[in-house]
C-alpha cells in the first residue's frame, strides 16, 4: 500500500505510471513474482489514470483530444515494438541501451529548459484545436497554451510506444518531458494528459495478465490500488505547492536514474 501511495503521488504530479518504482519494490522487497508485480503495477496505473482524469483537481489539466491523437501513434508504436520483439531484431542489451540513451537525452533537454513555462497570459488568445486553457496556480490567472511542433509530438508518441513494448515501461517517462520541452505543453497538462494515455494503454495488458493467470494476488493489487488512490490525492495537493521548476527537476532526476539503470546496471 505504501509503494502504491508513492506511485500514485508521482503519477498525479508527473504523469508517470509508477511501474519503474512499483515493480522493483513488489518484486525485490515483497518477493512477488515478476509477472505478478507487473500485472499489479498495470492495475495501479489505471487507478492513477482514473483519478487524474476524473478528480476536479486533475481534470482541468487533462487534454483528452491531444491524448487521443497521440494515443493512436503510441498504440501503433507498441505494435511495431511487439513485431521487433517477435523477430528478435535487437538484443536485450541494445534495447536497454536505446531506452537509457533516450531517457538521458530527454533529461538533459528538460534540465536545459527549466524556466520555460509554456503558458500565454492573455486568456483571449485562441488555443487552437489541440491547445487549451486552465487556472494557473503559480500566477493565479486563467492561462492559455498552444501545441507547437505536432510532428515532434507524434514522433515522440510513436517512439514511446515502441520503447514501452521493447523494455516494458509506460510511455509517460518520455512523453511528458517531450511534450513540455519541445511542443509547448505546460508540465501539469503534459502530466495529466499522459496519465490518461497510460491508463488506456494499460487496459489490454491487465486483461492479458489476468488471462495468463499472472494476477494471482488480487489482495495485494487491491492494497496497491487503495495506496495509489490516496497517493494521487496527495499528489494533487503537493503538485501546485511544489512549483513547476521543482517538478521539472524531480522529473529530470527520475529520468537520470532510469537512464543510469538501463545504460549501466540492467545491461551488465
Amino acid at each position: 500500500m505504501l509503494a502504491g501511495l508513492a506511485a500514485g503521488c508521482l503519477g498525479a504530479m508527473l504523469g508517470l505510471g509508477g511501474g519503474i518504482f512499483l515493480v522493483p519494490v513488489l518484486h525485490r522487497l515483497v518477493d512477488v513474482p515478476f509477472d505478478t508485480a507487473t500485472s499489479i503495477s498495470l492495475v495501479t496505473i489505471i487507478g492513477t489514470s482514473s483519478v487524474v482524469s476524473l478528480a476536479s483537481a486533475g481534470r482541468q489539466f487533462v487534454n483528452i483530444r491531444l491524448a487521443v491523437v497521440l494515443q493512436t501513434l503510441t498504440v501503433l508504436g507498441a505494435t511495431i515494438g511487439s513485431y521487433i520483439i517477435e523477430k528478435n531484431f535487437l538484443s536485450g542489451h541494445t534495447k536497454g541501451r536505446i531506452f537509457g540513451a533516450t531517457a538521458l537525452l530527454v533529461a538533459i533537454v528538460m534540465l536545459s529548459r527549466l524556466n520555460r513555462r509554456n503558458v500565454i497570459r492573455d486568456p483571449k488568445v485562441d488555443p487552437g484545436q489541440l491547445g487549451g486553457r486552465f487556472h494557473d496556480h503559480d500566477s493565479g490567472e486563467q492561462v492559455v497554451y498552444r501545441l507547437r511542433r505536432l510532428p515532434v509530438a507524434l514522433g515522440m508518441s510513436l517512439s514511446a510506444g515502441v520503447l514501452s513494448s521493447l523494455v516494458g515501461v509506460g510511455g509517460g517517462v518520455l512523453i511528458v518531458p517531450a511534450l513540455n520541452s519541445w511542443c509547448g505543453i505546460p508540465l501539469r497538462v503534459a502530466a495529466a494528459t499522459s496519465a490518461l494515455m497510460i491508463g488506456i494503454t494499460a487496459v489490454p495488458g491487465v486483461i492479458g495478465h489476468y488471462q495468463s493467470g499472472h494476477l494471482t494476488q488480487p489482495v495485494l493489487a487491491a492494497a496497491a490500488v487503495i495506496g495509489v488512490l490516496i497517493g494521487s490525492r496527495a499528489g494533487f495537493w503537493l503538485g501546485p505547492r511544489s512549483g513547476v521548476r521543482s517538478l521539472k527537476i524531480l522529473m529530470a532526476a527520475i529520468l537520470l536514474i532510469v537512464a543510469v539503470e538501463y545504460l549501466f546496471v540492467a545491461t551488465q
Partner: protein
Amino acid sequence: MTRLLRFLLFTSATLLVVGLIACLSTDPHGPGTAGFGGVCITIGLSMLVSIPVFNVLSALVTEIREREWPFAAATAAVVALLAYNVLQKIGH
C-alpha cells in the same frame, strides 16, 4: 458521463476497501481471495479497469456531438485498436 465515471471510481474504491478488510479479517496470516472479500475485490478491479474504456467512449461521443470529424475518426481509431487488443488478449 463524468458523473457516471466518478460513481464507477467511487464504487470500485469502496469495493476494494471492503474486500481487502474482509480478506484480511478472514485470514490475517496469508490473505485468501475466496468468499465475499475475493468477490468484492474482483468486481472492484473489473470496474476500475473499465474506466479508461468509458473515458475514450465518452470522448468519442463528445467529438461526434461537436461534429469534429477528424478528431472523431482518431478517437474511433483508438476505440477500435483498444477493442482489437482486448479481444486478442481474451482470445489467447
